């Protein structure tokens, strides 16, 4: 029972592979499967109880919350994917890996889930979409090497940890230096996956080269899984040596990415750096969570951030997919051509910038609040600076969109489905600005 959503996804993967055996897989069936499997996982979530299948599986409230965000964040790509059965199997495999990662009960399972989620992702980056195949292949290889390095670091860390504690799960007692080193290596692997500086070098290239829908998926669902991964590593020992570094690392990473994004001409690369800036804030949130004794309030704040970001990032990358825009120059004056889409994009940008009254504001507020409550004024100030610098390029994009004259031909926008997706994401991101205040029972449960 506790693995119902994962079972639905596994069924989806098997179904896609089965369809692949046919000489000519029916396109409609492949599309339906791609969309329905994550949707079914999402719908099965409320019926899924928390529980244990020792030693491999442990499903707790955090696991369920994260699954909610991951499956929801995967839906846009599910909706937009092509009728290719291999792509369908790869995509569902990644989501299944994420689902397993949230439920991993011990370290070997965590590693297995990590690889399960990563390997198809490399192929998905290389394969999804048409045109510019060479660049995507290069990015996928880069992604693969970064991922392999992260996997190696994790294994090495696990070995060190095991060699001293003889444990494959959390240690109730403080551990020695060797095991601490092991935990630090495992955390480095997680930071690699999140894309926090200085372990981020693969991220801009991969996020830029992949098709926008895939980048939207990687920057939301994959990021959510990676953040949970980091939190699981922090939970291994009562006081991890690296934990005090996390807030500073996160804030510095966010600041660095914000500065880098300022000068980007390619929209997708700009949004890639923007995604890295948001990831930095999440790492800051994890640092605050660790410092406050893993408070459920801080975990809820991180989860809310991930949920809001799922809307924002899927929406902005969806906008790129729907419009076919690639550079800032093409964006100029776009509001005159497509007022509806442009308005949604502008709303998403204000959300990303954290301007009230949007969901992005509440998300940033909650994470900064946790940092202040955890008595981390330095990282909080750095994060605030990063938010300010980020706003510089988000406003720059709104300026291009609305205040400039159209200077060059922009590509024809895509189909109705892609446009509706952008509008839905924008609406969701805005609505999350009011929802936490109105749904006080939901938020209050976490808050008390």
């Amino acid at each position: 029972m506790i693995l119902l959503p994962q079972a639905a996804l596994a069924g989806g993967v098997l179904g896609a592979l089965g369809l692949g055996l046919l000489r000519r897989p029916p396109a409609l069936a492949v599309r339906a499967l791609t969309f329905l499997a994550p949707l079914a996982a999402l719908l099965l979530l409320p019926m899924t109880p928390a529980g244990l299948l020792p030693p491999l599986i442990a499903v707790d409230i955090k696991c369920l919350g994260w699954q909610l965000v991951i499956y929801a964040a995967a839906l846009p790509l599910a909706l937009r994917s092509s009728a290719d059965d291999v792509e369908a199997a790869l995509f569902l495999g990644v989501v299944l890996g994420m689902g397993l990662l949230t439920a991993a009960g011990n370290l070997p399972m965590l590693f297995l889930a990590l690889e399960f989620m990563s390997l198809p992702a490399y192929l998905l980056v290389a394969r999804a979409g048409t045109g510019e195949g060479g660049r995507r292949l290069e990015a996928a290889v880069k992604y693969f090497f970064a991922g392999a390095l992260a996997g190696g670091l994790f294994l090495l860390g696990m070995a060190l940890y095991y060699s001293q504690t003889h444990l494959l799960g959390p240690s109730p007692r403080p551990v020695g230096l060797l095991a601490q080193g092991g935990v630090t290596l495992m955390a480095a692997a997680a930071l690699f996956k999140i894309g926090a500086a200085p372990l981020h070098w693969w991220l801009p290239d991969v996020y830029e080269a992949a098709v926008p829908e895939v980048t939207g998926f990687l920057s939301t669902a994959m990021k959510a899984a990676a953040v949970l991964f980091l939190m699981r590593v922090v939970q291994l020992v009562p006081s991890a040596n690296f934990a005090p570094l996390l807030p500073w690392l996160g804030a510095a990473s966010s600041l660095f990415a914000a500065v880098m994004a300022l000068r980007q001409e390619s929209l997708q690369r700009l949004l890639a750096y923007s995604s890295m800036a948001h990831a930095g804030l999440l790492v800051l949130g994890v640092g605050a969570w660790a410092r406050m004794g893993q408070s459920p309030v801080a975990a809820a704040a991180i989860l809310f951030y991930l949920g809001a970001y799922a809307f924002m990032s899927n929406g902005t990358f969806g906008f790129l997919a729907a419009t076919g825009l690639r550079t800032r120059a093409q964006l100029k004056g776009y509001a005159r051509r497509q007022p509806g889409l442009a308005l949604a994009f502008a709303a998403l940008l204000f959300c990303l910038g954290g301007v009230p009254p949007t969901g992005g504001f509440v998300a940033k507020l909650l994470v900064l609040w946790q940092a202040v409550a955890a008595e981390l004024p330095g990282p909080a100030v750095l994060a605030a600076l990063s938010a300010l610098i980020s706003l510089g390029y988000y406003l720059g994009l709104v300026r291009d969109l609305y205040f400039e004259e159209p200077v060059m031909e922009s590509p024809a926008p895509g189909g109705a489905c892609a446009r509706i997706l952008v509008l839905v994401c924008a609406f969701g991101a805005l609505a999350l600005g009011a929802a936490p205040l109105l749904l006080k029972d939901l938020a209050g449960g976490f808050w008390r």
Partner: protein
Amino acid sequence: MSPLTLLWVLPLAGAAACLLAGRFGRTAARLCALASSCAHAGACLAVIKPFIAGGGAGLIAVGGEPLAFGVSYLLAADGFSLALIGLTSFLTLVCVVSSWELEVSAAYWANFLALASALCGVFLARDLFIFYVFWEATLIPMFFIIGLWGSENRRHAAVKFFLFTFAGSVFMLLALLALVSAHHGATGVWTWDLQALKSAPLGAAGPWVFAGLLLGFGVKIPVVPLHTWLPDAHTEAPAAGSVMLAGVMLKMGLYGLIRVAFPLFATLSEAWAPWLAGLAALNAVYGALCAMAQTDLKRLIAYSSIAHLGFCLLGVLSRTDQGLAGGGLQMINHGLTTGALFLMVGFLYERAHKRGLADFGGLAVRAPWLTFFFGFSMLASIGLPGLNGFVGEFMSLSGVAHSAVPLLSVPFFAVAGVVGVTLAAAYALPAYQAVFWAPEAPQSVSGRVTDLDAREKGILWALSALMLWIGLAPQSWLTLIEPSLRGLVR
């Protein structure tokens, strides 16, 4: 729905209605904007009149329905809030009427009404979360007003305006978070209620938190080293945008100081008062000196705003009855006089597409009504006795001179203020002379300038009447704002 909720919801609904009406053409949107702003002005009057009749000492409050995160929907209005809400509503109406003949889309009107809604929210909120949300929400409509309908350099000015204010308010937000967390640490209760947070124990972090708040409000006033966004934003905004910027949005900073920062940090604000007063005096003198150096009429008025806000701040810092009332009154005065001046520069620009002092001359012959109203507003602005500016500045400066705050009553501050007043005449009169009375130069564009029409005269009559009213009989205005200010700062 409570009347206070109505005060901010009404213009927002009006904004939405304008967008819908825009589907039926520009006239429909325009009429809708006029109807909404009239309705809002009516609602304001309906709230303010009984309030004044009741002596002006009361407080109208709404609920405290608790929401999540310790936030509660808490609105209240005392005389000070109501005066600023009245000013917002009146100037919004002025903006709508003055832009009547512009060929603009429905979004123009919607942005002005949304701005009015957010501003009213700022002046009503007593829960700091709600206050912050409204505070930031004012930026979005103004960003679009400057960026879409401003003059040549509007794109740059819009982004600069947004970023500067956001820079201040991000630190204000951190300060508020520290305050809320400290209160929770001491009592175990999450709350953003301004009243409750007065008891939050901050310890050694206190000065930092206060500095964060000062930064947030100081950018908005603007206090001198933080003022560099103002000349660009005010110059590039469309005329009506400048009216709202100078008339109401600058007041947000002082309002925040008086409503939030000073009550929360009573001892610190008294200890730091001499330093703040030094900055205020610098505002008054430096703003005036910069204004003297300008060759663009609109930029000149923008710098004069910096100087005027210095007087307001000085008065408030003095903590005397006179100074407080004078500072508060001067906030209203500045909204009226500078609003009128920006409007007239806008009328000039609409006709001649120039704003330079050297581009005109001889307008006194070509446009006598414009000359009259400009002279009237300018004299009010530099503090001619009998008009509103005199009352505000005199009370502020005499308050500073009699202040009981240590170091503040030294002659330096009052003298700096007097120097500022003198300099005001030194920048305003030559500009007035150059544009209206000097002989027309060969390259002058005065030939394009026609005199005001009935609509424009009507607006300016209304503004001038208010200036004269405050100048001759300030008592009714003082009864509205003075009692609440006295309670706030002491």
